[in-house]
Structures are given as structure tokens and as C-alpha cells.
């Protein structure tokens, strides 16, 4: 304890020099902390996206300019399925053809896998069918200000974007996942050879909702499709948009001079959805004179192992005029990119730390050798080699610990800057998980720099230190 007190007093005696030593460690710790936080936040965000949308396919016009910002500059998270496609369209009439190709590709994918992976070898097993949710994007004047208005089929949209929640208002009464499932009845079965077969007779609702519905009507097997939104003038608002405009439930909106009523406000999802106004697809089509056209279709495959990647490849190969993107692939590419970026920056940080330790080593060595007379005196009055060594170690342990704490706090701030500078756009998640690592790094950097000179000095013969003193 007495030696610890000496170490603390010694640290306080040389505040400037110790601050200089600590600053190198602070920078190293701050860099690593910020990098870890940003990387972790980005990876977590990607993992969430993969978890949410991993088995989602987006089909959009081939020449579309995707990824347009819906209004929340700097706040839009890029890895979402909420692409905005403006000025390019897919005819709804083309959707059955796309679905057909999709189904064939999925079937071929299963066959390639040797059968249904989720339920192998169980004849007659029924898989959940895919859900197709069309969207129509248009820029429009809402209450005198330009915003992206998106036409959707709410029940399907809600099913594809199952993470959607309302902060106020409620979904239409018939918006229920089970209802959606029962209305869609495409089934995948295994034949007697264990291969996947598609039962066309129970072919149900498609994204256009019309062609198949008419066929179903003829067959009198499936009830007519219910209106997707009960009111043609119902509007649902993205959370950020509602907040920015101060809109609440029941407010009236004028979209291109047509009045709508706010029926619900969506919880923010850090996606382009947060800045949009959602109205029924059919209303949007007539309001913007885009009857029979949609901007994109999101497809949610209803099985965890569905070969969505295969479907994407097949669609891009076989259907002209569209581009299919698997979100799993997008997220995977982003994941790989972030990992590569993380490794690169980690190498930079490790190099910085190495240089930092070397400079600390030089400062510390100079600082310790300036204390050689004091060391000789301490030895002469009874300090043992191990006690002297402990004085140096305690000093630098405390210094490293303090530098670790400061570096951690600085790193938290730097994480936000790094996130902005590198345009990563992740939501920074502050976690104390990195604090122990920051402290360990601070202490290790400090001790690595001190151990060798401390060992050498404590090992010096007493007369070697005295010679300097007594001959002065």
C-alpha cells in the first residue's frame, strides 16, 4: 500500500510528462473503441436486416435508379428492403410471369438441394407460400410539400414487413397474418420420388390480385379478394415524417389536392419507410394515373432455407426488363464489405498502437533514466529490486487505466464521427462491453512500454546509480 502511495505521488509529480505518455494510449484506445463500436453497430444492423429480410427478394424495373433517398438525408439506413424506385415501372400484367419463373426457380433450387431441407423425406409436407407485395412510388405534394407517396396493398405489405409496428392508430380489421396465409394457397409438396411439385389447382392470390382472383372466381374455390385497405382515402405515415410535420391520428392530408385521413403512424425502422406516406395501391394508381403499373414487388419466401438466391439468378436470366435482388445477398455483400473495412482499419489501428507503444517506450525510458539518482537513493535506503519494479508497474498500471477510461469515452464520441465520415449510416449502439477491452488495452500498452526499462533500471547495481550521483 505504501509503495502504491509512492507510485500515485510520483504520477502526480510529473503531470505534463505523464499526460504526454497517456495521450498516445488515449488515442490508441479511442481509435480501437470507436472502430469496434462502429463495426459492431454495423454488423448488428446487418444481422438484423438479414434476420428480418434474409429471405426477401425485390423485383424492380431493370433501368430503375434504386436507393433514392426518401427525405431523411443522413438518417436512412441503406441495408433495407425499402428501396425507392421512381420513374420506372413494371406492368402488373407481367407479375404472373415473374411469379411463374420464381416458382420454377424455387422448385429447381429444392431439387438441386435434394428435396425440402426444412422437412426432408416427409411426403406431402406443405410449405408456406411466398407473399408478393407490390409498391408504387411517386413524388407528390402533400400539404404543399414534396414527399414520396407509396401505394401499397397493406395486408401483403404488413406480412412482408412483419417488423412494422404502429405507434398510434390501428391496422384495418382484416389485416392479420393468418388471414393472409389462408388466402394464399400456393403449396409445395413432395412427389412420390421426394421431389417438389407445385399444385397449380390451389393457385391463389398473386400480387396483382386480379387475374388469379378472376380465375379463382371462375373455379369458385376462393372467395373474392377483400379490399386491402377499407377506405380508399386511408393514409399511414412513416414515423419520422409524422414527427417532422407534427401529424397525428385523424389529421387530414391533401395529396395532389385529394383529401386523405391519417389512420396510423408507423414506428421508425431507420429505413426510407420512415419518411413516406402510404396509401392504398389502387388509389395511388388512379391518383397518379399509373393504372396497371407498379414500381417494384417485394417477395417474402416463407421458408428459412428457400433457395431465394437461385430464384434471383433465374429471374434475372429469364425475365427481361426486371432486376431481382436478394436481400440476403445484398446484406452478405455489405457484411463482407464491413468486415474487410474493419480488418483494414484494424490493421491501421494496430500499426498506430505499435508506433504509439514505441514512442511511449522512448518517453518512458528517458523519464525513468532521469530518475536514476532517485532510484539509487531508494535502493540505498532499503528498497529491494522487486519493490522498485513494483513502483514503476503501479505507476504505469494507473496511467494505463486512466488512459483507457479517457480513451473509451473519447472513442464513444469518435464512433459517431467515424460513422459519419465513412458514411456507414449504422445506428451507433453504445455498449459497456467495450469498456473492459479499452481498460485492458490501456494497461497493456502502458505496461508493455514500461516493463523493459523498469526491469533494466531495477536491476542496476546500486553503485552504478550512485556513480552518477556521487560523481556529479
Amino acid at each position, binding site marked *: 500500500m505504501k*509503495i502504491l502511495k*509512492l507510485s500515485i505521488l510520483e504520477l502526480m509529480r510529473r503531470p505534463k510528462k505523464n499526460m504526454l505518455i497517456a495521450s498516445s494510449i488515449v488515442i490508441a484506445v479511442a481509435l480501437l473503441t470507436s472502430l469496434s463500436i462502429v463495426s459492431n453497430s454495423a454488423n448488428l444492423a446487418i444481422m438484423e436486416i438479414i434476420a428480418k429480410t434474409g429471405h426477401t427478394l425485390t423485383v424492380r424495373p431493370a433501368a430503375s435508379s434504386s436507393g433514392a433517398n426518401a427525405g431523411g438525408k443522413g438518417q436512412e439506413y441503406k441495408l433495407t428492403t425499402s428501396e425507392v424506385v421512381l420513374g420506372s415501372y413494371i406492368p402488373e400484367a407481367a407479375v404472373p410471369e415473374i411469379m411463374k419463373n420464381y416458382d420454377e426457380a424455387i422448385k429447381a433450387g429444392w431439387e438441386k438441394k435434394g428435396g425440402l431441407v426444412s422437412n426432408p423425406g416427409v411426403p406431402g409436407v406443405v410449405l408456406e407460400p411466398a407473399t408478393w407485395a407490390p409498391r408504387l412510388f411517386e413524388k407528390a405534394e402533400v400539404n404543399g410539400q414534396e414527399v414520396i407517396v407509396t401505394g401499397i396493398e397493406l395486408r401483403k405489405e404488413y406480412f412482408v414487413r412483419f417488423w412494422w409496428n404502429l405507434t398510434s392508430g390501428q391496422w384495418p380489421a382484416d389485416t392479420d397474418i393468418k388471414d393472409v396465409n389462408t388466402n394464399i394457397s400456393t403449396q409445395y409438396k413432395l412427389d412420390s420420388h421426394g421431389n417438389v411439385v407445385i399444385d397449380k389447382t390451389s393457385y391463389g392470390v398473386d400480387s396483382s390480385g386480379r387475374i388469379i382472383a378472376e380465375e379463382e372466381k371462375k373455379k369458385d374455390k376462393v372467395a373474392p379478394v377483400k379490399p386491402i385497405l377499407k377506405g380508399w382515402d386511408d393514409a399511414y405515415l412513416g414515423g419520422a415524417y409524422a414527427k417532422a410535420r407534427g401529424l397525428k391520428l385523424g389529421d387530414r392530408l391533401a395529396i395532389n389536392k385529394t383529401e386523405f385521413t391519417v389512420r396510423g403512424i408507423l414506428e421508425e425502422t431507420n429505413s426510407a419507410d420512415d419518411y413516406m406516406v402510404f396509401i392504398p395501391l389502387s388509389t395511388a394508381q388512379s391518383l397518379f394515373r399509373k393504372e396497371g403499373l407498379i414500381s417494384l414487388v417485394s417477395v417474402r419466401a416463407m421458408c428459412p432455407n428457400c433457395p431465394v438466391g437461385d430464384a434471383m439468378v433465374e429471374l434475372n436470366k429469364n425475365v427481361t426488363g426486371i432486376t431481382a435482388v436478394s436481400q440476403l445477398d445484398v446484406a452478405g455483400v455489405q457484411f463482407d464489405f464491413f468486415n474487410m473495412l474493419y480488418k483494414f482499419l484494424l490493421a491501421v489501428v494496430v500499426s498506430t498502437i505499435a508506433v504509439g507503444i514505441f514512442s511511449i517506450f522512448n518517453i518512458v525510458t528517458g523519464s525513468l533514466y532521469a530518475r536514476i539518482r*532517485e532510484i539509487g537513493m531508494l535502493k540505498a535506503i*532499503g*528498497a529491494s529490486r522487486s519493490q522498485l519494479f513494483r513502483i514503476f508497474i503501479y505507476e504505469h498500471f494507473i496511467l494505463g487505466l486512466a488512459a483507457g477510461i479517457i480513451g473509451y469515452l473519447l472513442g464513444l464520441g469518435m464512433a459517431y464521427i467515424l460513422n459519419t465520415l465513412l458514411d456507414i449510416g449504422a445506428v451507433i449502439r453504445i455498449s459497456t462491453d467495450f469498456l473492459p477491452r479499452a481498460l485492458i488495452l490501456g494497461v497493456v500498452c502502458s505496461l508493455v512500454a514500461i516493463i523493459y526499462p523498469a526491469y533494466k533500471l531495477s536491476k542496476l547495481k546500486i*553503485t552504478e546509480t550512485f556513480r552518477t*550521483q*556521487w560523481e556529479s
Partner: protein
Amino acid sequence: MDNSNGTAFLELKNVNKTFNLSYGEVTALEHVSLTINKRELVALVGPSGSGKTTLLNIIGSLDRPSKGEVILEGTRIDTLSEEELVHFRREKFSFIFQDAKPLRMLNVLENTLLPFNFFKPKNRNGNIRNEGIEIIKSLGLGHRLYHMPSQLSGGEIQRVAIARALITHPAMILADEPTANLDRDNRLFVIETFRKLSKEKDIAIVLSTHDLEIANRADRIVHLKDGVFLKDEAIACPPCKV
């Protein structure tokens, strides 16, 4: 060469010390034999390079002789391990340096008690802190107890070094040029304090000096030149000779 006039405390027998330097071997001490008794104040006198510091180092077990023996109270100490010597030095010796350098972050009292940060005092009755205060007061620094070294004069700093040397109750104090940087009043104060301590507390004190006025106040003067023992002169009435 044995001019002992009391109980033999430390004995050097035919001590040689050579240093291997880059330009060759240098002999610092040659065939030095010396006995130091308890309660004796001995002054080592000689020009620079005569071997005073080397002799002090060997007496205080800070260095080992190349040849010869160092015997303290019947125990040969030049063959002890470094670990044994640390404990040995704590019990037997105290050192005072020319440039006393107390630790700058400790006050006068804390500097005096500094050795007990490294080992516990043995066979002590009473409060060590109070004893430290008494020693400081006896050295005329009672009003400086909690002052920092930066607030002290050179003479006062040297008294702090003496207080630190006394707190461990050493059998021998070794002082290398302890009066070199002091004015005459302070020089005389230091040497008189040494005289008093050696007699009152049974401490053998060996100091090196260039100053004959100081040396003449010792019980004995040992003259060295070029590492060779020249003369061991007993002072009959040290204060009278001044």
C-alpha cells in the same frame, strides 16, 4: 594500521578493487586494511580519484572488493548474496549523499519516514511517526515538518537526509561529501551533529571530505591517494584542533 580505540565494528582486510573499463583495467583501491569501531567518527580524506567513494561503497556493502575481506561484527559480508545484502543494509547501514535529494513529492516528515515504506522497523517501542518528529526537531527543523523539499535550503535538505539516516537506528552511517555544497555554518552543524550522534547513539560514522576543517573534527582521519592507504591519523581532541 589498526588505530582502534573502541569496540571493533567493521574490518577491511587487504582490500583491492579494480574496474574493467573500455580502455583497460583501473585499480581504485590497493591493499587497504582498516578497522572501524563503534562510536567512532572517521573522515576519509584525499584528492579526487583517490578512492574515497570506492572505499565507502565497499564499507557500506554497496560494492564488493575484487580481493580481500569485509567483516562486520564477525560476519564476512562481501560474500553475501544481493538479497541478503538488502536485508543486511536495512539493519546496519544508513547513507547520506552529497546531493541529498529527498523525494520531491514528500514533505520533511514523510521523507524522514521513507525507509519504512520498504521495510518494517524492528524492535521498536513507541510511535515511529513521533520518533521521526523528535529526530527532526533535534536537528532544528521542528518548524519545517510538513514543508516540501522545494521550500528548504541546502543545509535544511542535508538535515532531512540525516534525519532519514537516523530513523532506522543504523549501526553505521556512511556519508559521501555530506558538507560539500553547504556554507560554513551548516558544514559545522553537520559535523557536530555527526560527532554527537556517534557518541550518544553508539553509531560508527564514516564520511568522505576534501575539507580539512571538517576532517579535523573527526576522531580519525584516513588519508588516501591513488587508491593507496597513506596514513591513519587519530585526532586526540578533535574540537581542540580546530
